[in-house]
């Protein structure tokens, strides 16, 4: 299926490039709808693989690329069903999102995340599965999960470790602080920082460049230089589920969801 318009995301194939647009207001929070539609995208990606050399993932939502997991939905689904059922539900969700993320991570084409604004938590993790991140200068990155008594659960830690030095990973994970695109470039997280509103245009120009090279060579090179940390990804799910069972998480989620003030995304 070369074109699809979903409720939370859409894709189209044009001149060898798939563009996957996220468009769920307010900020592409990843809950069951986004997951289902990503799962629909995966077989379509497989069908298109012989016709494409690049995939661009971007957001049309003003606030940013993606604010992460849909915490309100997570809280609602976990309420009143008992801890064990809640943890089982979370594990099921994580295993599904990991299958999506792992497929994109290993896809036989070059993947580009064109990000702007809020790129937090699961959104940051979605960007990290891509081969290249092109960031608008207003992009802001964060792993805020520790604020909720959790760790990133969509594969962020193994992938961040794959890409960055351990000291930087410790800083980002343990402080839970957000940082801007200039910092992201400085630490080697993003390949380019571009003007406000320019990320998609530059991603498209980059995709044209990628199309000049032999596809099989590019696929072989990517497989060689980009290992998928499958074992650590499984460990991350286990650790996340163990933490999710702790009281601190329910309290953290409740605080976020019931927050009547303006500051749930600030530490």
């Amino acid at each position, binding site marked *: 299926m070369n074109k699809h318009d979903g409720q939370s995301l859409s894709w189209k194939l044009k001149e060898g490039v798939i563009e996957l647009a996220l468009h769920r207001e307010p900020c592409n929070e990843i809950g069951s709808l986004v997951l289902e539609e990503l799962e629909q995208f995966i077989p379509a990606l497989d069908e298109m693989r012989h016709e494409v050399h690049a995939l661009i993932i971007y957001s049309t939502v003003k606030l940013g690329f993606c*604010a992460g997991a849909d915490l309100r939905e997570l809280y609602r689904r976990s309420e009143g069903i008992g801890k064990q059922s809640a943890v089982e539900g979370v594990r099921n969700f994580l295993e599904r999102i990991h299958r999506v993320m792992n497929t994109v991570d290993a896809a036989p084409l070059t993947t580009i995340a064109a990000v702007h604004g*809020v790129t937090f938590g699961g959104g940051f993790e979605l960007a990290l599965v891509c081969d290249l991140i092109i960031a608008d200068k207003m992009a*802001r990155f964060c792993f805020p999960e520790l604020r909720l008594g959790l760790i990133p659960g969509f594969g962020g830690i193994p992938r961040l470790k794959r890409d960055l030095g351990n000291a930087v990973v410790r800083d980002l994970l343990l402080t839970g602080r*957000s940082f*801007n695109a200039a*910092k992201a470039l400085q630490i080697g997280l993003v390949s380019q920082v571009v003007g406000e509103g320019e990320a998609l245009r530059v991603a498209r120009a980059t995709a044209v460049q990628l199309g000049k090279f032999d596809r099989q060579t590019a696929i072989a090179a990517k497989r060689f230089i980009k290992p998928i940390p499958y074992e650590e990804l499984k460990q991350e799910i286990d650790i996340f589920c163990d933490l999710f069972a702790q009281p601190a998480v329910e309290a953290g989620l409740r605080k976020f969801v019931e927050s009547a003030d303006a500051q749930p995304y*600030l530490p």
Partner: protein
Amino acid sequence: MRTPDQTLDEILTLAASHFKVPRERITPDDDFFKTLGIDSLQALDLLTRLEHHFSVELPDYELQGVSDFRTLAGRIQSRL
């Protein structure tokens, strides 16, 4: 180097311009969430613009409990 008053004035001007609030309606001790009508995601947008403007990096945990422009200016001033 900028004085604290210059830093504060530049913050007020930038915030007013970006969020389209008349500059004369913003005073240093105002709660910026209420005065600008913004939430935390928009506050992060403001933070990014201020980091670019002043060429500083300001970890957002430095904003714990900060909701007025004057205190925000102090945090930025300490990084200049």
